[in-house]
């Protein structure tokens, strides 16, 4: 089985994030594998171990993403590909990324492509479906279970807490939801072996793409942090008075009732 994983390097949203000059400050930020992509990597490894084949992890990004690719190799992926757009693209969006990935994947005879359901930075969830659309293969998003039997695939899809069982066939693109599996830690021997595994670096040129072909379809007007949370208010006094005050506050101040 020829398996590809779409992986993104993102900043860790659990660490402190600051903005300067309309951009997220990269200096202080911690960078990680997009958590949903970790499920994708784990699933790809499990499918390969059960069915044989090869797992290739691809990312579109900059030189810095090598660390996350090596981590995926340390977890057990066989190969990694970095499509480095650092020198070619000033600005990119989901269209750009999907177009580049599809161009790379179109002649790779992929049986299974797995991505994360969303990236925790942009949160659009568009790249996976767009790639499938461009490759003209079926896709199922936010999956929590995957079973492959010959070329029949049974997928459980999370629909806002409910489950939907879908039967489809290979080749297929799926995006991983939390609960799909428990991503493994890269083992120490895995980390040491990762440096000997192939990591190819490509640029737009290598895919016969021009900057115009992948020009972003959207513009980011402004980036801002959510408003600071105000300190809470503790009501005091008789219970009945507290209830009255609460209702009045919800009505007059919060304007929600």
């Amino acid at each position: 089985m020829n398996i590809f994983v779409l992986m993104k390097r993102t900043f860790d949203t659990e660490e402190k994030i600051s903005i300067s000059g309309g951009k997220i400050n990269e200096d202080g930020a911690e960078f990680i594998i997009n958590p949903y992509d970790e499920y994708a990597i784990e699933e790809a490894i499990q499918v390969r171990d059960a069915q044989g084949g090869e797992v290739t992890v691809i990312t579109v990004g900059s030189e810095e993403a090598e660390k996350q690719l090596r981590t995926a190799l340390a977890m057990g992926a066989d190969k990694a590909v970095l499509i480095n757009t650092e020198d070619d693209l000033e600005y990119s969006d989901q269209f750009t990324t999907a177009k580049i990935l599809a161009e790379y994947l179109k002649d790779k005879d992929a049986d299974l492509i797995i991505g994360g359901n969303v990236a925790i930075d942009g949160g659009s969830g568009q790249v996976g479906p767009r790639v499938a659309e461009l490759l003209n293969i079926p896709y199922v998003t936010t999956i929590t279970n995957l079973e492959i039997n010959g070329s029949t695939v049974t997928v459980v899809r999370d629909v806002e807490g409910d489950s939907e069982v879908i039967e489809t066939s290979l080749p297929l693109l799926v995006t991983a939801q939390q609960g799909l599996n428990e991503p493994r830690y890269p083992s120490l021997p895995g980390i040491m072996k990762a440096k000997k595994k192939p990591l190819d670096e490509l640029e737009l040129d290598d895919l016969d793409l021009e900057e115009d072909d992948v020009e972003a379809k959207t513009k980011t007007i402004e980036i801002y942090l959510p408003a600071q949370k105000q300190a809470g208010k503790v009501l005091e006094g008789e219970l009945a008075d507290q209830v009255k005050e609460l209702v009045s506050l919800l009505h007059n101040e919060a304007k929600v009732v």
Partner: protein
Amino acid sequence: MNFELTKEQQMVKDMVKEFAEKEVAPKAVHVDKTGEFPVQTFEKMGQLGLLGIPFPEKYGGSGGDTISYAIAVEEIGKACGSTGLSYAAAVSLGASPIYYFGTEEQKQHFLVPLASGKGLGAFGLTEPNAGSDAGGTRTKAVLEGDEYVINGEKCFITNAEYAKTITVTAVTGKDERGKNIISAILVPTDTAGLTINSNYEKLGVRGSNTSEIILENVRVPKENLLGDPTGGFKQFLYTLDGGRISIAALSVGIAQAALEKAINYAKERTQFGQPIAKFQAIQFKLADMAMEIELARNMVYKAAWLKDNGKPFTKESAYAKLFASEAGFRACNQAVQIHGGYGYMREYEVERYLRDIKLMEIGEGTSEIQRLVIARQLV
């Protein structure tokens, strides 16, 4: 000169940090309170290859370097001092001497299970009457036919109750000047005549197993003698040089945990109408703690780097161990101070750091002995 970690070292750090936060830290309070040895944690660490970091793959290891190992000890120790000590002892004292001095057969037989995480190792040097003065060892091993017969007593041995193999030092004869020859002998813990008791009630590192070992006519094949039959003393000095790097790394980890707790608390605790972190007296404490911890960490990395590059590191590992343990103790003490009365309470965990880190000034050579080691290299 390059102060950056390699990609592999960085990945080891990320992985161990995540593992320690998710799997080790949540058990730290329980382990301290009950003194229960965290067996399952060690099984998981074994599966991840943490117990074999500095050993080659052909001996079941992970093929990493001493720096990666020191980073791992720091991260585990930051989450739980008890687990950190047993980890450091398993690798530096249990497995390392077999790797340094063992024959190929001994490595295959004794090192592979330890490095691949299928068992823990221990090193029995200290005796009731021979602590700092290891030359005063009284345990005796007498060759009878093809076997060594060992009699004696060891105390304060880390991991012994959970170990597969204990490397025991014993007097095997006298040299031409009439001085005792000390050798190291590999003793499987299921050998008849070996009794292991773990009844110590400790101040800190309470979840780390510490045992007394009694050897009564313990018989092992003469092939179990480790390395040079007359060089046991030199061998354990070398072993301790390496072990000191890990004790230093462990000190850095515990102290770092104390610093982080102290910073958070200082920002939250309000007195006289402002967070105590606004008081310069508190800020100066935090500044000193952070500075000393970073200096200690640099010394750990340097000593580890020297070892990895085959250069002498006796003096530097003593610097690292001495400075990191003393600076770490100061940092943990100040962390309690910054927490005030709350710091004295178990719930806030900083008192555990203080209890745990005290051992670092004692184990693998006391601070006084580190100064002797350093001075010997100077004069």
